[in-house]
C-alpha cells in the first residue's frame, strides 16, 4: 500500500517537474544521476582520487624522490625488497618508497590529465565555436582539417606528435594528448551550435534584434555545455590512458625519479619478472581512476540525453 502511494507521489512529482519552469535540465539530470549506481560508483572513484591527490603530501610517509640506503642495500637486478617497517609496500627499482610514490604520483597524473583536457577543450571549442558561429567557407575549411585529424587513430596521432620532440617531458606528453582531443571538441561544439541555429529561441533572439555575438555567447554556448562537459569527463580518462601509453613507448619524461603512474608503470617493465607488483600498483591506480571518469562521463551523457527525460 505504502509502495503504491509513494509510487503515485513520485509520478505526480514528475509531472510537476515537467510543468514547472524552475526545474532545469541540469537539476533534472542531477536528480537522475543520484539514483544511478553507475553514476554513484564513478563519482565516488573520482572523489576518492581527487581527495587522495589533494592530501597525498600529508598521508605519504616519505618523499617521492628520496632513495633509502636501507632499501638500496638489498636491491639487486634480480631482487627488489618487499614490505618492511616504515615501507608498507617495499621498495621500487631505484630504492624509493613505493607507497609514498604511488600516493604522490596521483598529483602528477591529475595534472597531466587536467592540463591535456583543458588545452584540448579550449582550442577545440575555439575552432568548433568559430566554425559553428560563422558557417560558410570558414566552417568548410576548419571542418576539413578537423576531419583529417579525426580520421587518424588517436593514439597513433599522439605518438606522431610526441615523437616530434627530441626530448620527451611531461609537457610534450600533455601537448600530444591535448592535440588529439582538439578535433573531438571542435566537431562536438560545431554540431551542437549548428543544431541550435534554427531553434526557436535563437530565431526569437534574432528577431528581437539581439546582436549575433550575444546570441552566440548567451544562448548557443550555454546550451552546448552539456555535451562538452560529458566529453571533458571522458577525455580525462582517455588522457590518463594515452599518457600512460606514450610513457610505455618511451615518449614520456626520461627522469626515473619522477613519480607519475604512467611513467612508474613504464619504468617497472624491465623488472616485471622479478617484481610484478611494481607494475601492478600503478596499473591498477590508472585503471581505477580511468574507470571512475568513464563511468561518471557515461552516466552524465545518459542523464543529459533528452530522450531519457521523463
Amino acid at each position, binding site marked *: 500500500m505504502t509502495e503504491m502511494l509513494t509510487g503515485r507521489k513520485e509520478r505526480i512529482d514528475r509531472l510537476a517537474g515537467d510543468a514547472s519552469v524552475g526545474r532545469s535540465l541540469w537539476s533534472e539530470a542531477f536528480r537522475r544521476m543520484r539514483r544511478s549506481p553507475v553514476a554513484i560508483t564513478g563519482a565516488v572513484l573520482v572523489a576518492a582520487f581527487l581527495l587522495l591527490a589533494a592530501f597525498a603530501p600529508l598521508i605519504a610517509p616519505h618523499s617521492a624522490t628520496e632513495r633509502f640506503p636501507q632499501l638500496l642495500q638489498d636491491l639487486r637486478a634480480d631482487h627488489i625488497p618487499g614490505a618492511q617497517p616504515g615501507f608498507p609496500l617495499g621498495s621500487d627499482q631505484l630504492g624509493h618508497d613505493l607507497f609514498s610514490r604511488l600516493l604522490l604520483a596521483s598529483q602528477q597524473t591529475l595534472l597531466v590529465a587536467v592540463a591535456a583536457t583543458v588545452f584540448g577543450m579550449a582550442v577545440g571549442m575555439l575552432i568548433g565555436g568559430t566554425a559553428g558561429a560563422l558557417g560558410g567557407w570558414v566552417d568548410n575549411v576548419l571542418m576539413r582539417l578537423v576531419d583529417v585529424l579525426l580520421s587518424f587513430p588517436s593514439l597513433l596521432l599522439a605518438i606522431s606528435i610526441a615523437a616530434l620532440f627530441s626530448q620527451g617531458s611531461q609537457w610534450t606528453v600533455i601537448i600530444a594528448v591535448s592535440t588529439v582531443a582538439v578535433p573531438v571538441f571542435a566537431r562536438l561544439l560545431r554540431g551542437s551550435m549548428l543544431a541550435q541555429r534554427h531553434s526557436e529561441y535563437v530565431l526569437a533572439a534574432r528577431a528581437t534584434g539581439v546582436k549575433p555575438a550575444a546570441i552566440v555567447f548567451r544562448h548557443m554556448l550555454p546550451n552546448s555545455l552539456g555535451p562538452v562537459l560529458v566529453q571533458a569527463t571522458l577525455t580525462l580518462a582517455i588522457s590518463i590512458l594515452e599518457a600512460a601509453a606514450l610513457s610505455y613507448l618511451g615518449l614520456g619524461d626520461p627522469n626515473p625519479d619522477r613519480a607519475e603512474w604512467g611513467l612508474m608503470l613504464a619504468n617497472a617493465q624491465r623488472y616485471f619478472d622479478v617484481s610484478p607488483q611494481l607494475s601492478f600498483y600503478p596499473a591498477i591506480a590508472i585503471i581505477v581512476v580511468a574507470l571512475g571518469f568513464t563511468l561518471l562521463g*557515461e552516466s552524465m551523457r545518459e542523464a543529459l540525453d533528452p530522450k531519457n527525460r521523463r
Partner: protein
Amino acid sequence: MLRFTVRRMLQAIPTLFILSILIFAWLRSLPGGPATALLGDKATPEKIEALNHVMGLDRPLWEQYLGFLGRMATGDFGNSLISADPVLAEIGRCFPATIELSIVALLIAVGAGIPLGYLAARYRGGVLDNLTVGVSLIGVAVPVFFTGLMLKYVFAIQLGWLPPSGRLDPQIDATHITGFAVLDGLLTGEYDAAWDATLHLILPAVALSSIPMAAIVRITRAAVLDVLNEDYVRTANAKGLDARTVRGRHVLRNAMLPVSTTVGLQIGLLLAGAVLTEKVFNWGGIGSLIAQGIERHDYPRLQALILLAALVYVVMNLLVDISYAIIDPRVRVR
C-alpha cells in the same frame, strides 16, 4: 553502386592531400630542420648546409612539396637511419607479422564479440548481460599493454603454457614464403612450425582483441536492442513467423549494419594497439619498427610508417562505406 564507389573514392582524395601536407609540415617542423635531425646535434653548419642542398631543402617550399609528393607516389621513402635499408623494404619485411596479429585479433573479437553482444541483448537484464556490459565498461579503462602483461605473467611466466614472446621458437628452422608464420608452416608442410607459430600468436592476439571486442560487444548489444523494438520485427512476430527466422533474418541482419561500421573503424585502433602489444610480446612487426624508430629518432622510417598507417586507415574507411552501401541500399541514394 559503381557511381557511389567512384564518388566515395574521389572524396578520399582531399583527405589524402591534406594529410600529405601535414606530414610534409611535420618533417619541416622538426627541431633544427630535417638535416639536423638526420645528422644529429653535433653536426657542423657546413655539413648541414651541404645536406640541405642535397635534399633540396634550399629550394622554394612548393618545389620541395612537389618533389616530396613525387617521391611518395613512387614509393621512395628514403633509407632507415638505423638499418640503412630502404624504408619500404623494412616495412615489407615486418608488415606480414602485424597483419597476421591484427587479423587473428579481429577474428577473435568478432567471433566472440557479436555472439556475446547478441546474447546480452536477447537476455537483457540477465546475469550474462550485466557481466558483458560491466566487463566491456571496465575494459575501456584497461590499457592494452597491461592486458598483454597480465596474460604474459599468468599464462607464460607462472603457468608456462604458452611462449612469452617472439613469433617462432628460434630452434625451429622455418621456410619463409609469405611472411605469415602460420600460413608458411602449413604451405611448406612444416606442421611443427605452424603449430609453434600458432602458440606464439595466442597471447598477443587475445590481448590485442580486447580493444575491438569491448566496442563490438557494446554496439552489437545496442543495435540488437534497437532492432527488437522496430515495427517490422513486431510485424514478423505477429504474422506468426518462426522465432528463429525472425531472429536470423530480421533482427540479426539489420543489427549487423552499425556493427559492420564499428568493425571497420576498429581496424585503425588495432594498428595503434598493435604498436603497444608488439612491444609487450617482442613481436617484430610494424609496431616494433615504430617503437624502435621513436627511440632512435629514425625520421624517414617514422614518416613512411605514419603515411602508411594513414593510408591503411583511409582505405579501410572507404571499404567500410562501400560495404555499408552493399548491405543497406538506402545509403547509395544519399
